[in-house]
């Protein structure tokens, strides 16, 4: 049985037994190469679920939709490794109860998908430990290094050209499971902390504010990068911050629901040499 069939069946069982009230998965998209988020509430709709290498989106952001988990009922969800990591972070930041989430995990390879054993977010320690060992991912290393080797002026020019394209549609924020604030700082207009104008300064402000807020939290699902309608390589910023956090604190985000947040935890014995 293909993993797609297996998970359709599992989703149907979960829904008909009443264990979950909803399954969030992937459905067919407008074109054959596209998949779109799909919300399934009854067993007879589960045949619409798809699972293949085109299922790229990290769906975990939908879990923090206002009110979704308030009734304490469970929700089933298709998640790749990045999705599992983001559920861990959402749990560690008290945004959801991980025991309300029934995971149908999968690993995406170039052409196919394979199942990840387990259904609770605590069931994947080995897989996550292996991910940490591999980090940072090799995929973009060349480009990251090229930017590293630039002079500060060259680097500024590079990002200036990229951010000049930004139209402040906030797709990067909206698609990001870690951007769950009910009211983002840029939407706060009394006072207006961050300029809303999409000029060079405003675009820099926005993208840098986001980079800082995601440091030690981003799971590198690439959602922002894929969502960006003007193709700004946003993953590079988050990758760089993730490398920094790994290097400085040996912190790889989303390892468990009990993991301490790297930049929001206080310890008495924290070295604070930079303050004194």
């Amino acid at each position, binding site marked *: 049985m293909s993993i797609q069939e297996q998970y359709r069946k599992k989703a149907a069982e979960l829904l008909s037994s009443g264990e979950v009230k909803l399954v969030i998965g992937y459905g067919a*998209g*407008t*074109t054959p190469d*596209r*998949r*779109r*988020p*799909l*919300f399934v509430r009854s067993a007879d709709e589960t045949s619409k679920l798809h699972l293949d290498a085109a299922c790229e*989106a990290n769906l975990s*952001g*939908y879990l923090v939709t206002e009110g979704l988990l308030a009734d304490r009922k469970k929700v089933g969800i298709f998640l790749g490794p990045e999705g599992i990591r983001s559920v861990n972070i959402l749990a560690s930041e008290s945004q959801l109860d991980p025991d309300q989430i029934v995971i149908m995990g999968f690993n995406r390879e170039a052409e196919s998908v394979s199942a990840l054993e387990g259904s609770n977010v605590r069931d994947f320690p080995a897989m996550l430990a292996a991910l940490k060992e591999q980090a940072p991912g090799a995929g973009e290393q060349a480009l990251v290094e090229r930017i590293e080797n630039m002079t500060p002026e060259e680097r500024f020019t590079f990002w200036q*050209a*990229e951010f000049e*394209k930004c*139209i*402040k*549609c*906030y*797709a990067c*924020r*909206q*698609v990001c499971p870690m951007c769950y604030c009910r009211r983002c700082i840029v*939407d706060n*207009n009394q006072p*207006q902390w961050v*300029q*809303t*104008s*999409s*000029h060079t300064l*405003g675009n820099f402000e926005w993208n840098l504010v986001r980079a800082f807020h995601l440091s030690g939290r981003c799971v590198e699902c690439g*959602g922002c990068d*894929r*969502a960006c*309608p*003007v*193709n700004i390589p946003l993953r590079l910023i988050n990758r760089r911050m993730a490398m920094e956090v790994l290097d400085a604190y040996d912190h790889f985000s989303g390892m468990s629901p009990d993991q301490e947040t790297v930049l929001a935890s206080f310890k008495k014995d924290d070295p604070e040499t930079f303050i004194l």
Partner: protein
Amino acid sequence: MIQILLRDKLDDCITRWHAAGYDVIGPQKNNNVTRFAPVEKASELDLEIILTDRTVKELFFPQTEPMFRYRIGKQAIDTEEYLPPGRKRIIFGSRPCDASAMAIDDPLFGWDFKDTYWFQRRNETVMVTIACTESDDFCMCTSLKLAPDSPLGSDIMLRPVAGGKGWHVELLSERGREAFDRIEALLDDSAAEKEPIANVPKRFDLDVCREWLADPENFESHFWKEISIRCIGCGTCTFLCPTCHCFDFQDEGDTYSGIRRKNWDSCSFALFTMHTSGHNPRSTQSSRWRQRIMHKFNYFPGKFSMNSCSGCGRCSRQCPVDMGITETLQEITKTAK
């Protein structure tokens, strides 16, 4: 006799237009995004792009535009107005959907208050549109009763000749004639065959949709929640839409001096309708998506007798979660029948 503009004469055309004081702007791929930008020579143009990622809208209605600078002194308030640069320009290679969209927005920007910024730019621009001979899975102009060669909003229509050597020239306005007078000597007479225009399938029934939308019974329909459940509430569809025109005023600076700007805004954002009291009449994403559809296919046509959509399909093509106008109107067509 039909006049033809040969592709290899484009450089000479650009030189002559520049000499006559026109800026020439065309589709280009730069830094992984396709958009309209000024060109010096023909080789900078990418005329094979079916539709640029970003629309020509930003050339008339920029994403952020300074309106005036203010300084509040002890005795007086100084203001200094900013106006568009005031240069003649030719947009070479826009597509019929983008050009139509500018004409669709004309009544909007002129019905009660004439928006100087918009009309000055409109009046100084010659739209040279290339009819589409290719389309993709998201193009939907025919569903909007437009076509891959709609003349709406264009000053010149160019129709590709077979073999890609050039275009048949069709003059549509006085402004277009004036610009092409400058290059008349470069045009050839030809009997070359035109390439057939793209075959864009009809994706939904607009009349059925409009009737359904106009029925007040459907305003509170559960349909809106279902169709928009995966909407993440970003502004991609509205900002990439050639007809979406909402804006916001922002004063940047402080109480004593600063700049007032006109910035794109989007009905997808929760903040768009947020009242000072904290009450938000469109508090859910489904009510925002409903507003977008209602505005385009119910309220706007009610006021201006045109749909606020030219069928470019960018809302679906570039949506991060594969939503868009096409899917919604297809589902309405099914529901209503």
